């Protein structure tokens, strides 16, 4: 740490008591020198008679002393600025853990001097971690822990390293505790852990849903081959619904996007024969999955037996908000222009899903009718239930 002249100049304002003592001593010596006659006999600071020293030599020695003093001041000032520049809280502790000195960036004020450092951590577990770190440093090693401090609403997290300050004999003389503010990183880690937990939860729920779809498909399928076809179609419908949900950050999806996503696999073959219309309505993840599966079942059925099985058939999906404060969602699936309708057998996956799922999950009503002109489904559900955020 080499001092520069500029440092020496700036340092003069923060002169320490020791520096002041040296400066005053030099001034005193200089005054003595000028008073002393004859100048051939002078005394060294230790009192011996220094017959060799001439006034010029004394001046030279004083100049050297002044220069050394300036360098010392600069060096101390630089050290002070260095410590002030650090964003870390730096504390010097006695071997017993008492605070002896600390930087201003610290989480404690000057009143902390003389206090027990380990006791300054609010959590009992962290006080133990602090004691363990102190013991490590006393033994010549490095102790490290992470702990919070401060009021709950403005809590900061610290990464704390305690290391020994060795004396000339190499034995720890005092301890150095450096605490770095890692609050941002800590919050990010907490957030990530929360996201992982949330993702694990969603994944489990999705697996449970796929399990139910698989089991229900096998229960109602006439053959393994048809079960395979139906299951793949349903899995694809769930996958498309996830795409729609991910676009809305899993919080909300636009009903129009849900309808479009569910119809996309069936739309190629029916250029201009499908129409969707309705106001903008945001739906929650649960209803997006349920509704996507329902629309998939209706579309699959229409492609096999209904309006989408003939070149002249059409499908319209329309929706509106009704009731007090537009609290009810009405959605209609209407087929027309297809072959004369023969009502499907009851109890299949599609009709059970439509009849039970929405009614059960959202407290709504569904009617699925099969007039000769084409299948019609009307559903009605409280919008609030369909907008709920979980899946």
């Amino acid at each position, binding site marked *: 740490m080499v001092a520069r002249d500029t440092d020496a100049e700036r340092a003069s304002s923060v002169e320490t008591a020791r520096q002041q003592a040296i400066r005053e001593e030099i001034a005193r010596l200089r005054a003595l020198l000028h008073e002393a006659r004859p100048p051939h006999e002078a005394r060294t600071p230790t009192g011996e008679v220094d017959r060799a020293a001439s006034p010029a030599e004394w001046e030279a020695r004083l100049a050297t002393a002044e220069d050394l003093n300036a360098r010392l001041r600069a060096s101390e000032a630089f050290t002070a600025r260095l410590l002030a520049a650090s964003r870390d809280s730096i504390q010097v502790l006695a071997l017993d853990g008492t605070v002896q000195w600390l930087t201003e960036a610290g989480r404690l004020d000057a009143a902390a001097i003389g206090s027990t450092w380990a006791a300054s951590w609010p959590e009992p577990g962290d006080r133990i971690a602090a004691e363990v770190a102190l013991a490590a440093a006393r033994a010549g090693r490095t102790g490290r822990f992470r702990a919070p401090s401060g009021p709950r609403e403005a809590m900061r997290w610290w990464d704390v390293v305690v290391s020994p300050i060795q004396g000339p004999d190499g034995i720890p003389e005092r301890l150095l505790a450096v605490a770095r503010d890692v609050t941002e990183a800590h919050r990010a880690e907490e957030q990530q852990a929360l996201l992982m937990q949330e993702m694990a939860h969603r994944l489990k729920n999705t697996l449970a849903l796929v399990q139910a779809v698989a089991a229900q498909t096998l229960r109602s399928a006439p053959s393994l081959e048809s079960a395979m076809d139906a299951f793949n179609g349903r899995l694809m419908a769930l996958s498309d619904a996830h795409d729609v949900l991910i676009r809305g950050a899993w919080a909300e999806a636009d009903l129009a996007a849900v309808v479009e996503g569910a119809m996309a696999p069936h739309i190629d073959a029916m250029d201009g024969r499908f129409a969707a219309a309705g106001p903008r309505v945001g739906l929650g993840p649960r209803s997006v999955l349920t509704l996507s599966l329902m629309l998939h079942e209706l579309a699959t059925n229409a492609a096999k037996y209904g309006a989408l099985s003939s070149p002249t058939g059409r499908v319209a999906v329309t929706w509106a908000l009704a009731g007090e404060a537009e609290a009810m969602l009405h959605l209609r699936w209407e087929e027309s222009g297809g072959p004369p309708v023969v009502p499907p057998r009851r109890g299949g996956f599609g009709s059970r899903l439509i009849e039970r799922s929405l*009614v059960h999950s959202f407290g709504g009503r569904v009617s699925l009718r099969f007039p000769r002109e084409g299948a019609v489904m009307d559903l009605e559900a409280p919008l609030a239930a369909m907008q709920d955020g979980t899946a």
Partner: protein
Amino acid sequence: MTSDPDRHPQDSRQDGPDPACDAAPVVLLVEDDGLLLMEAADTLAEAGFTVLEAPHADQALKVLESRPDVEVLMTDVDMPLGSMNGFALARLVSRRWPRIPVLVVSGMGSPGPHDMPPGARFIPKPYAPSALVRTLHDTVRRAA
């Protein structure tokens, strides 16, 4: 072919073998997802249970008040529509109807220290249907 939301609880009574009891034990199934409920109800009905259904805790309490023959409660945890989640329902039921054993199922890891009432069982989702049936039979047998 109209469904009516006021028709809860729905009975899906089916005859089936049951080694534990002579009659089909009555289970109240509380699950907000219609598809999961449908599958669980089918599984339990096939295993010889009489299944009552409720989509959320408030409906479940109504069923319990009107059906003294409920022998076991099986509930999901996350049920946004009701006024309480499955853990709170499980605790309430074990206080109000101590003779009814409780089984909690959920996809959200394992329960916290104070989530479950004493003696209640927990099964993580997804579960093997045979494990669910076995656990429910055990639970009913122990309570009998």
